[in-house]
């Protein structure tokens, strides 16, 4: 099945480009501005967009994404509002892939079948469910096998060869490589070690590899782009939005986001 995600990676490859994937928490900093930011992300050069489904207990997130989730939930955000955001984005954009990323419980409470139906109806292209390892494939992943919805998995520095086979089985879209041992937006990866790890991965799979966790500056992005198919930025983007929003400089939010995305896209 050719999903928007694989089409995007095919085009990037054809143009010898590395993809830029951006992460934004749904409903952050508020519902309206969130939609505006998503539009700016795609216009400024983000090739794929991850929308975070806020959760009260985001175990893999560092302080910045935690805070963004909390702000969103404190504003009364719900799964329905996440879908509403995507629906509005899709009214104007039918090419940029949208990936929903988050934790299993809000999906489970929404109802797995119901959730997948909504994803298809509203034009979601992929799912990343942080706390749903292959051991629990029968719950959600298996429901996505024959439909236009990629199930994107994470590989990490702790993933050995045996485990990698389990992770790759039923993986689709791309493989998300977590560049550090830790949570989002904290440590920076050691680029030499990272390069070795990605080269090793490439020998095991043809699926595109996106690298994330701990990437924030153009110089890092540039170096990582030399050996990966995409880079993911999340915390650093959220941090920039947070700073301007909390200083009541809402007008600067969109322009800084645009500038930042362009600065990354220009070097990868």
């Amino acid at each position, binding site marked *: 099945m050719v999903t928007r995600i694989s089409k995007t990676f095919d085009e990037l490859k054809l143009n010898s480009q590395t993809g830029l994937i951006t992460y934004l928490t749904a409903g952050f900093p508020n519902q309206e501005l969130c939609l505006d930011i998503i539009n700016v992300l795609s216009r400024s050069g983000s090739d794929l967009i991850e929308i975070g489904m806020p959760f009260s207990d985001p*175990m893999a997130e*560092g302080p910045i994404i935690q805070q963004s989730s909390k702000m969103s939930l404190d504003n009364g955000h719900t799964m329905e509002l996440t879908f509403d955001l995507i629906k509005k984005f899709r009214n104007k954009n039918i090419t940029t892939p949208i990936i929903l990323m988050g*934790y299993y*419980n809000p999906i*489970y409470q929404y109802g797995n079948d119901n959730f997948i139906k909504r994803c298809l109806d509203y034009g979601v292209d992929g799912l990343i469910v942080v706390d749903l*390892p292959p*051991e629990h494939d029968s719950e959600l992943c298996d429901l996505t096998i024959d439909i236009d919805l990629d199930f994107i998995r*994470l590989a990490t520095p702790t993933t050995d060869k045996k485990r990698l086979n389990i992770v790759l089985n039923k993986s689709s879209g791309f493989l998300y490589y977590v560049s550090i041992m830790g949570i989002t937006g904290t*440590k920076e990866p050691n680029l030499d070690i990272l390069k070795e790890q990605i080269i090793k991965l490439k020998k095991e799979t043809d699926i595109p590899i996106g690298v994330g966790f701990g990437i924030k500056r153009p110089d890092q992005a540039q170096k990582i782009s030399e050996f990966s198919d995409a880079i993911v930025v999340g915390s650093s983007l959220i941090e920039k939005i947070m700073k301007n929003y909390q200083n009541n400089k809402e007008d600067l939010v969109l322009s800084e986001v645009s500038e930042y995305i362009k600065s990354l896209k220009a070097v990868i």
Partner: protein
Amino acid sequence: MKKNSYKLGPDSDGNFGLFGGRYVAETLMPLIIELEKAYSDALNDPNFRKEINQFSKDYIGRESPLYFAERLTSYLKGAKIYFKRDELNHTGSHKINNCIGQILLAKRMNKNRIIAETGAGQHGVAVATVCARFGYECVIYMGKKDIERQKSNVFKIKLLGGKIVPVDSGNGTLKDAMNEALRDWVANVENTYYLIGTAAGPHPYPTMVRDFQSVIGEEAKKQILEKENVLPDALVACIGGGSNALGLFYPFLDDDVDMYGVEAAGLGLSGNDHAASLAKGSPGVLHGNRTYLLQNTDGQIREGHSISAGLDYPGIGPEHSWLNDQGRVNYVSSADDEALNAFEICSKYEGIIPALEPSHALAFVFKLAKKMKKDQIIIVNLCGRGDKDIETVANYLGVDV
């Protein structure tokens, strides 16, 4: 699972029916699998059991007595009440049973940095204690609110060489402390062992903690047969995550014995200020397992409330969720004021100051005993002593300590 036994769970994937499992980030999966293997190897090593028994006897002070609470029995004018006195253990609660088991496992796995979450601080103290004994680095995550209401345990942990990390993410309570501990673990998997304090979390923790706590029920069974020559009619224990209850219940699951797990009803079950996950929650996924949780319709986890910092977790161990749905164990609840009343009466009639956690169990015993015949027997797990709660209770009663 065969219908003729309630003791066969979990299955090989760590499921107790719908509950349990391994819902963790990929970074942790290899470690969880390694832990499962290490635990199963340990179980097959007679030296492991021998070492636990040795520490249980000489360090914890087991076995703990089974004590006939004669004055409380005559006060209530009903069934005979026995206390399983795990409050007499070293460190003052049942938590140490599990900590000795897990620290010996950490040693086998060559992990020398131990992390843990704590709510009331009893688990934190027990972890810091075994870390001191084995010479391991100890990092305890504790919610800011809990640090304020459990000052003496905080000081003990520091005295024992543990480092306390205050958690103010989320709402700064036990569930947030558990999130932070998981985040630490992801960042330090190579040398770190996460010593979970209750029978919850990803497989194999719920099983492992249950096994290490089952010594409570095994002893109680032997002791009651020696004293009364019959099995008890009822077992009662309080439930936060549920490790002390499971420890008492598990060895009796296939016997003709009624069981009551007592959740915290806080200010009452009609509002949101309680921690009764089974009575008022629904199945969901948090902290590595599927179980009953207090949550809103959108799957966001709510905070639990209880006067007892050890019971206000918004979830419960997965095996309890399963036993609840099987109808094998009755889950009931006691409110803050009922627990305080039981706390005072137990102190006055038996000369034993119980922790606020087992005071919830006692409060239910007060109701249950009266409905039973005088020749019937109740065993209640007195899983912790009340020293740590003196200030809380004094505040409630309006007394300056």
